[in-house]
C-alpha cells in the first residue's frame, strides 16, 4: 500500500514532463548532458549520474564484499561465543552511525588522507565515496551473511568435522557452497544500501557531473543530484519534475535489487522446508 502510495506521489509529480514536447525519454536515460538551469540549451540527460552511481557502488562493493564476507565467516565460524557477541554488538553500532556523520568523515578525514597519499587535487572523489559506502554497507553484509551461514544445518558441520576437516576446509568445501544464495542476498542488500545512500555520497564524492575516467575523479550520483538540486528547483518547473523522474528511476533500481534479494532468500527458505 505504502509502496504504491510512494510510487504514486513521486510519479504524479514526474508525469507531466513525460508528455511535454521538449522531453524525450531516450535523452533522459542515455544522454550525458545535464544542464538543468541553462538559459538557452536545457538538457536533462542522466547517464552521467547513473554512471556516477554505478562507479561508486561498484568500487564500494569491490572493497566491502571480501571484507564483509570474510568478517561474516570469522564471526560465524572462527571465534568463540564471547567474542562473537562483542563483534555482533560492534557491527550493530557500526550500522547505526547516521549517513550524514559518514559524509562528514568522508569530507574531513578521508579526503585529507586521500589527497595526501595519492596526490589527487581534490580528496572528494569516487574512491572517497566508495570507501565510505563500503564502511556503511559492510555491517549489512556481515549480519545477513552471518545469518546465511548460521542457516546451514548443523548436521553438515558435524559431518565435515567428524571426517577430520579443519574449520577452514569446512568453510570452503561445505559452508560456502551451501550458503551461496544467502551470501548473494547479503551482497545484494549491501548494493541496495549503497545505491540508495544519499547524504554520505553527497558530501564525499564531489560535484562534477560527468562520466568518471578514474577512481580519483569527482562524480555526482543520482541520489546526490536530487539532494543537491531539489532545493533550487521551483515547484512545478520542468527541472523539478525531472528530479522526481530521477527519483522514479532510482526507486525502480533499488526495487529490482531488493526484490531479487528477497526472492533469493525466499528460495532458500522453501528449499530448507522441503529438506
Amino acid at each position, binding site marked *: 500500500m505504502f509502496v504504491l502510495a510512494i510510487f504514486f*506521489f513521486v510519479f504524479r509529480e514526474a508525469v507531466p514532463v513525460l508528455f511535454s514536447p521538449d522531453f524525450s525519454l531516450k535523452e533522459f536515460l542515455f544522454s550525458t548532458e545535464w544542464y538543468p538551469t541553462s538559459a538557452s540549451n536545457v538538457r536533462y540527460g542522466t547517464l552521467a549520474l547513473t554512471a556516477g552511481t554505478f562507479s561508486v557502488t561498484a568500487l564500494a562493493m569491490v572493497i566491502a564484499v571480501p571484507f564483509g564476507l570474510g568478517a561474516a565467516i*570469522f564471526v560465524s565460524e572462527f571465534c568463540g561465543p564471547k567474542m562473537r557477541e562483542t563483534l555482533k554488538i560492534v557491527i550493530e*553500532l557500526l550500522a547505526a552511525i*547516521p549517513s550524514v556523520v559518514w559524509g562528514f568523515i568522508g569530507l574531513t578525514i578521508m579526503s585529507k588522507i586521500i589527497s595526501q597519499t595519492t596526490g589527487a587535487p581534490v580528496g572528494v572523489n569516487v574512491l572517497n565515496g566508495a570507501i565510505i559506502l563500503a564502511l556503511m554497507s559492510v555491517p549489512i553484509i556481515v549480519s545477513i551473511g552471518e545469518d546465511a551461514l548460521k542457516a546451514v544445518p548443523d548436521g553438515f558441520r558435524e559431518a565435515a568435522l567428524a571426517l577430520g576437516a579443519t574449520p577452514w*576446509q569446512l568453510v570452503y568445501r561445505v559452508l560456502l557452497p551451501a550458503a551461496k544464495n544467502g551470501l548473494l542476498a547479503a551482497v545484494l542488500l549491501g548494493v541496495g544500501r549503497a545505491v540508495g545512500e544519499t547524504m554520505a555520497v553527497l558530501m564525499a564524492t564531489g560535484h562534477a557531473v560527468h562520466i568518471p575516467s578514474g577512481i580519483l575523479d569527482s562524480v555526482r550520483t543520482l541520489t546526490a543530484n536530487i539532494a543537491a538540486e*531539489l532545493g533550487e528547483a521551483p515547484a512545478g518547473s520542468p527541472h523539478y519534475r525531472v528530479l522526481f523522474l530521477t527519483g522514479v528511476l*532510482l526507486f525502480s533500481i533499488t526495487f529490482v535489487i531488493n526484490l531479487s534479494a528477497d526472492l533469493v532468500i525466499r528460495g532458500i527458505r522453501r528449499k530448507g522446508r522441503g529438506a
Partner: protein
Amino acid sequence: MSSMETQNVAQTPGNQEALSQVTPRFAETPAVRKKLLCQKIAKIIFGLMAAAMIVPLLLILSYLVAKAWPTLSWEFLVDVPKRGMTEGGIWPALIGTVYLVFISLAVSAPIGILAAVYLNEYAKDNWLNRIINLAVINLAGVPSIVHALFGLGAFVYAAKMGYSIISASLTLAIMTLPVIIASTREALASVPIAFREACWNMGATRWQTIKAIVLPNSISGILTGVILQVSRAAGETAPIMFTGVVFYKAVERGTLFPYYLNEQCMALSMHLYTLSTQVPNVQESLPYATAVVLLGAVLLVNATSIALRVYMRSRKKW
C-alpha cells in the same frame, strides 16, 4: 589432498616398525600439517578482515572526539548559534531533532505495532497478505531521498501542510514504519505457538489471547525495535531537508518549546551538513562537536536497546 591422506593412512598399518615405535597414535603427516597450516592462515586472514572493519572505526571515533574536545561542554548544548552560525551552540537543532523524532514515532509506532499484530495474529496466508509482506520488505529498502520526494509531493504539496515540522515528522514516520512492522512481527513470532494454543483452549478469544499472553511476552522485543528507530529517525537527513528543516531558525537559548508544529525547525543532522558544507569560516571544532553529539546520541540509544535485549533474553523462561 584427500587422495594423499588415504595413501598415508594405507601405508601406516603396513609399516610394522612405525607401529612399534613410541610415536603418538595420530602422528602428523605432511598432509595434515598442510591442512593445519591452511587453517591457521585462514583464521588469521578472516580475523584481520574483521579487525579491518573495527580498527578504522575506533581511529575515526577517537579522532572526531579529539577534534571536538575543546568545544564540547554543557554550554555548547544549550547555547544558540551565533555570528552567522560560525560560533555558539546547537540548542535549536537539538530540540528540533527531539521534536521530529517524538512526533514521527508517535505516529509510526502505534500504526506499526497494530499492523504487525494484524499481520502476525490474524492474517491468513493469502495473496493480499503476501503482497503486503512484500511491500513492507521493499519499503524498508527505498532510498531515503525517494522518501524525501514522496514527503514533498504528498505532505508538503498534496496535503497542503507546507514546509513544517509535521510534514517532516510524517515523512520520517513513513520511513520508520516498515522497520517497526518487521521488528514487531519478529518479536510476536518469537512467542511460542503453544502459549497461544493453551490460552485458546481455556476459551479465550483471539484478542484476549493477544492482550493477556502475546503482547506481555513480546513487549521487550517490540520496544527494542521502536528504540532502534529513534536513533534512525534522529540520524536521517535527506528525508527532512526538503520537507520542513531549515538551515537556521532563531530561537531563544535553552527554551523547551520553541517551535509550533506548522513551523519549520532545525535538526541536528541537517545542522552538521550545513556547518560542514554551506557555512564559510566556521570555527573549526564546531562541526566536529556537532558530529560527536549526534553520534553520541545515536549510539547511546542503540546501546540502550542492545542492553535491554540482552537483559530480557537472560530473563526469558522458555
